[in-house]
């Protein structure tokens, strides 16, 4: 018997979650549909003036992406918690943070990456063009992993708690504020012609910070939830 | 002493509504908290006695 390396464990977890997502494609598609529908509702509510739409585009697209991420958070641990797989996973021969990073990465691949890939299309709906479209994609690329990382803490905290769907939103949304500000700010400043570099680098800093802290917090929350 | 009369004091130079709402709400909240704690403690102690 040999202990599998950290890398092998990580790959095993990601591959397993992707396999499971392939078996339930509708679940993964749901958050993307949600994003498209929410983003499409805003022009209907605000009116079709291109100038107004372009002005609200960064905020609306970012809030929609944030809500789509929030909607899919319940899936990170709940199913595994209910059928006892999470219990088994807590007993892997690696630090628990490795498990968390694997699961969060898989969650991002399933629900974050589609949002990033779809965002240029939605940006076009709102009349964004050229450089700001690129900044939108880049900001989401940096921001959505952070959202998944922070969200995992909340998802682990509310495992098996009644009314967890609403509770997780209340716990996680305040933690999302900086990401939202920097993400939407990057697009806004590129629209204003200042260039989004400063905000993008702050987004990167947020990602680094969450990569550093969130796995440990999530691991602690998982241990507490499974006691 | 800078207040000529009680009316002047209550008027707060035209800002009476804002000033007294702030101080009043604060006093109300604190008083309510103390009262609620008083009741909570009475209930808890009574319950404790009932059971044990």
């Amino acid at each position: 018997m040999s202990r599998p390396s950290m890398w092998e464990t990580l790959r095993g977890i990601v591959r397993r979650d992707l396999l499971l997502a392939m078996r339930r494609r509708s679940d993964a598609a749901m958050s993307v549909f949600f994003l498209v529908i929410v983003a499409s509702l805003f022009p209907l509510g605000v009116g079709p003036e291109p100038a107004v739409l372009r002005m609200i585009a960064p905020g609306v697209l970012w809030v929609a992406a944030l809500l789509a991420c929030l909607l899919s958070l319940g899936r990170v641990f709940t199913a595994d918690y209910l059928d006892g797989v999470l219990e088994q996973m807590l007993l892997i021969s690696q630090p628990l943070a490795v498990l968390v990073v694997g699961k969060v990465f898989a969650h991002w691949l399933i629900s974050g990456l589609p949002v990033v890939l779809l965002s240029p299309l939605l940006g076009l709906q709102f009349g964004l063009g050229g450089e700001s479209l690129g900044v939108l994609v880049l900001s989401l690329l940096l921001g959505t992993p952070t959202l998944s990382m922070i969200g995992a803490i909340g998802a682990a905290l509310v495992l098996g708690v009644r009314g967890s769907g609403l509770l997780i939103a209340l716990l996680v949304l305040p933690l999302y504020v900086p990401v939202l500000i920097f993400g939407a700010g990057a697009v806004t400043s590129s629209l204003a012609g200042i260039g989004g570099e400063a905000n993008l680098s702050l987004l990167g800093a947020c990602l680094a910070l969450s990569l550093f802290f969130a796995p440990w917090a999530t691991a602690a929350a998982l241990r507490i939830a499974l006691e | 002493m800078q207040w000529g009369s009680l009316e002047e004091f209550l008027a707060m130079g035209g800002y009476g509504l804002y000033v007294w709402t702030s101080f009043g709400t604060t006093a109300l909240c604190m008083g309510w908290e103390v009262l609620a704690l008083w009741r909570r403690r009475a209930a808890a102690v009574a319950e404790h006695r009932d059971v044990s």
Partner: protein
Amino acid sequence: MSFMGVNWLKYSSPQAFYPLAGSLIPWCAAAAILLIGVGLYIGFFIAPTDFQQGEAYRIIFVHVPAAWMSMFLYVVMAAWAGLGLGLNARLSFMMAQAIAPTGAMFTFLALLTGAMWGKPTWGAWWVWDARLTSELILLFQYAGVMLLRTSIDDLRRADRASAVLALVGVVNVPIIYFSVRWWNTLHQGASVSMTAAPKMAATMLTAMLLMTVGFWMYSLAVTLARMRCVMVERESLLSWGKQASMQEVAEAR
């Protein structure tokens, strides 16, 4: 662990802490009443009228102490929560639980009095100023910690889960403050600094500090009193456990 000849470790047991808290409460309450009384007197009768803001500035005698206390109490709550997680001490968790409602109340008061001050001074009830915004998020975080605690039935898990959330929140608040300030400077013009008048009279400062220490003493008294309530409630749960099934205990709570 001895400081000034007192064995502080002794008070980490509930049996010793309960009477200690009981004997501290009257002193804290008396100090609070005295300090707040003197603070109010100086604030209303000695401090001069501000030449820019008129009498409306007197709101800061309650606004600033409330805002300070709200943040201070959150940090203290998180510190107790962290201590509880680190040492696995039930008393620390109870302390964190006892602080949360008072902290949330001060946060709410800071927001409300902030609006009351903002309307005559800025002409708007609410401005997306960095301090006000982080205060709002702080209120959400207090609410999150308290809600998480009440929605978990198992006491031990409730303690520990809300402790983790409180600790995560401590990292979040400065980041939010910083990010909102950054965001405000980007949206030129909207930023109105809430810094008090540049040259503050000594009497104003005295009144504000007295009020702050008074609020602090008030928080101490209320927290200790709530702590005693929590201890009695948890004790009675323990004695119920002998007779009632777990189900009944969970429902009764």
